[in-house]
């Protein structure tokens, strides 16, 4: 998940589809995000590269739609519904996730274990 500034980022991603849940008159997804280009990346406990300003999942509420869909703590969100999440501010990321007229968000997330799994499977061959 490291990136070289100026070079395209390549990562192994998993597609996760979360269906939003009605809670009162809010639509919730059931997780919390942290990070963004306007935040301090050195405080991110989940990132490997402490200069990575991407959006990370910092909390997944138990039994919520995110957990059900397969989102894990510490995931880095790369795309939301086609919108890029690697170079956005925190607020922009929140807005893209909480659009009221969308019931479903399709995320592309990446985590360390994915890459390990792919490498292992490649080594086996």
């Amino acid at each position: 998940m490291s990136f070289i500034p100026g070079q395209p980022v390549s990562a192994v991603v998993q597609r996760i589809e979360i269906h939003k849940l009605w809670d009162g008159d809010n639509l919730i997804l059931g997780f919390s995000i942290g990070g963004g280009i306007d935040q301090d990346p050195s405080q991110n406990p989940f990132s490997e590269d402490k200069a990575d300003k991407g959006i990370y999942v910092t909390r997944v509420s138990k039994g919520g739609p995110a957990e059900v869909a397969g989102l894990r703590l510490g995931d880095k969100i790369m795309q939301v519904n086609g919108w890029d999440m690697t170079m956005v501010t925190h607020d922009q990321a929140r807005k893209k996730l909480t659009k009221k007229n969308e019931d479903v968000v399709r995320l592309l997330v990446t985590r360390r274990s994915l890459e390990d799994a792919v490498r292992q499977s490649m080594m086996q061959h």
Partner: protein
Amino acid sequence: MMNCVRFSSIQRCDANVQKLIECLFPHRSVLSSPSASKIDSLRSKVELLKLPLTLSSKSISERKTRLGGATERSRGGAGAHKPRPPAPDMDNESQYSGYSYKSSHSRSSRKHRDRRDRHRSKSRDSSSRGDKSVTIQAPGEPLLDAESTRGDDRDDNWGETTTVVTGTSEHSVSNEDLTRASKELEDSSPLECRRFAGPVLSGVLGLFALLTPLAFLLLPQLLWRDSLEPCGTPCEGLYVSLAFKLLVLLISSWALFLRPPRATLPRFFVFRCLLMALVFLFVASYWLFYGVRVLEPRERDYRGIVGYAVSLVDALLFIQYLALVLLEVRHLRPAFCLKVVRTTDGASRFYNVGHLSIQRAAVWVLDHYYTDFPVYNPALLNLPKSILSKKMSGFKVYTLGEESSTNNSTGQSRAMIAAAARRRDNSHNEYYYEEAEMDRRVRKRKARLVVAVEEAFTHIKRLQDDEAAASPKHPREVMDPREAAQAIFAPMARAMQKYLRTTRQQPYHSMESIIAHLQFCITHNMTPKAFLERYLAPGPTMQYQRENGSRGRQWTLVSEEPVTSALRQGLVFSLRRLDFALVVTVTPLPFLNLGEEFIDPKSHKFVMRLQSETSV
């Protein structure tokens, strides 16, 4: 240029007048000889002739009345002139200039005003008017120069010192009115005397008040010295304190009140009149008691008399304190915001003033007008004809058949207006391009001017003292500033003229004035940019004042409220001049609720921005 147009028809009359003046009086201070009366009479006739087209007959007779009154006082009663009562019907435009404004804060002018007010109030009921317009005359020169420049300023300034006949004045003057008025005004001092009548009288009353205690002390000594009881040390102490208090009164009166008047106001100054009346009553009552208790029974207790005189001086000091507070201090704290807008081109300013009456506020505004507002240039006002004339062309309306002319005409005009409104109006386009073109032209000329001036300035340099001796083999021609200015004016003259013509400033700067300014700049080591600042931007009106401003600038104050009433919210008055006006709106300054917040200096701490977590 507009001035020239106005003057042309009156030049002939003016020339005669000037000849008359020059041969009749170089010395105008001689007032007590019989020939002086002839001089004065001729002068007054001359005055009237110079103001033919604009004064109404009523105001002329009023003016005459007041002049007559002033002459009487200033001559000390040499002539037997009774002030004639003013004409019974009033005009809406009253012009008084017998009331000085800032000068005579001392008591005698108030007393004088008091007397005049009593005299005037019988003959006119001024409070019942609706739209009142009164004149303020704001002289630009101090007291002493008035005499010396009188001869020269006649033809230059007389356009500015005549009053305009506006819509408010109902009467116009005709020839027979003129001759009648001039006959009435046989002997009256010239208009300028009225300006100083006020302070002279205030000086008289002040002197009277100051001399009263001394009189109180001296009269018993002179009249019944032998029967007075001797009084020792306490009296001496009282003498000393009396002397010092009188000295303080004298000095502070001189410092505060005896200033040359800068404006003549249309109505009397309420506070000043009040204070004058107070002083007069006060001194009069002291004299009354003195006469009854001391002079009549020949009082023998001298110490009591001295104590009486000292108490008078104490009370005078307190009255002076009251005068100081009412006249000077009260209007210093800002309470109102005045918005001043010029009607012709919309130049506007905001000013903060304290509690003033309308006329005083008007003078205050005019003071600041002369230094803050860019000069009024009538040539810059209108849109070029080419843009405006297109609007109404292209439509001809024909009437078919029946007459009934009134119906048709209104119908016609309405139809034309409607049609014109519906038509596509492209004049804004032309205005835009015309303005852009004008800007470009001005900038081009300005660039040429700046370059020419810079080059011209490089031709001369200041001669250092040691250079003259050190280089005898290069004898350079040494010039004084005037010659140097003339020498370098030639290369820049053309560029300057073109620039001034493009910015329509050429009536304000004659060649003579440009050379004079150039000379001034060279003398003071100014750079070309400093020389040009006068021409590149239109300066305040004060800059263009001609030196002979002793006749003063005539302004008319138009207001719906009596001009001695205080300022309050929502008041609007305007100051009118011949071709433009200043409209002044009064709003109170907002009340400020100031709160307090204490910040501990140690509380300024910073951290890096944390990862904020948002739940979605």
